[in-house]
């Protein structure tokens, strides 16, 4: 191993190693930063396209968390990410809103619900019910709304419905709908 080179040597050596590490990583970061951003953007674009197939570009407002969907420079809708407290954890939902304030549709981005039960919220059978709903209709059937809960997964269904309703109500009240 290393000969005895004085007690300062380990510190100097380590400092050099850390310095080299920072340099090489900064280089690596410079090389990949753009690509990573592009990858993230296209991921978001793909996600938004599932709700708005005619999407050309989108804009993102950091303060409000709203995505404005554009096609031919015209706004064809808005989208927002929201989180519901599900049975097994947080449910990440993408909500699309038409210019008139109705729901365009929702997509489940991530969830940890029970497979075979609550996890069925990702299926189109459940999700398609949200298309075209106005803010007052976003509730489970048994709560006076138009959405059929998943059999045996009332908690998961209700979590999604209530979170979506609340978000639509908030942005509607803030003049989000036109």
């Amino acid at each position, binding site marked *: 191993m290393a000969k005895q080179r004085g007690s300062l040597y380990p510190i100097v050596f380590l400092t050099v190693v*850390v310095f080299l*590490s*920072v340099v090489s*990583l900064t280089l*690596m*970061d410079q090389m990949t930063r753009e690509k990573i951003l592009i990858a993230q953007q296209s991921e978001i674009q793909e996600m938004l396209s599932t709700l708005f197939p005619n999407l050309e570009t989108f804009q993102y407002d950091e303060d409000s968390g709203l995505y404005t969907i554009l096609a031919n420079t015209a706004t064809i809708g808005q989208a927002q990410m929201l989180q519901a*407290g*599900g*049975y*097994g*954890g947080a449910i990440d939902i993408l909500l699309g809103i038409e210019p008139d304030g109705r729901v365009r549709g929702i997509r489940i981005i991530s969830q*940890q619900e*029970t497979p075979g039960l609550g996890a069925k919220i990702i299926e189109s059978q459940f999700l398609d019910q949200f298309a075209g709903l106005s803010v007052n209709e976003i509730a489970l059937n048994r709560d006076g709304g138009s959405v059929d809960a998943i059999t045996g997964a009332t*908690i998961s269904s209700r*979590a999604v419905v209530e979170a979506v309703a609340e978000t639509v109500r908030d942005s509607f009240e803030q003049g989000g709908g036109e």
Partner: protein
Amino acid sequence: MSELIAIFFSMALVNNMVLVKFLGLCPFFGVSKKTSSAFSMGIAVMLVMLVASAVTWPLFHLLLVPYGFEFMRTVIFILVIASLVQIIEMSIKRTNMTLYNALGIYLPLITTNCAVLGITFINIDQNYGFAASIAAALGAGVGFTLVLLIMSGIRERLDLADTPKVFKGAPIAFLIAGLLGLAFLAFGGMVG
């Protein structure tokens, strides 16, 4: 406050570090043979998790992010943890020799415990605030200790039982861990 409690229980039970997130497995199988060492290990790990979270959070949000050095996170975090473990090891050595001997070589191993580095990553990835990070670290540590204790209790009894030869030791430990994980599934729905 309720959010902090939810995070605590989520980390400890629903998303238990060992059984669900697969972190902290090496010491899990190494130390869990005796309840006494399991407990000491668990507490030590929880301590490191807490301090590591408390240190890495401000380091990341107040130093790395403003200067665009997020990518240095892995290097910095692991160095912080390694130093912390060294410091704790030295203080235990000076204050309590029996404890030091009990933990033996497992102390420096905490550095390579995926659970400690893991929780610091989770705190960042989940965008936790400082208080939430501490709650998460506390929950993770408690959950880790809990599982370690249960595991050691079971294994102590298993040693006296008649296990088929091919299963003795590691294989049966894994199967037990799986069963434990199944049992912990029952916690799902607790944090809604």
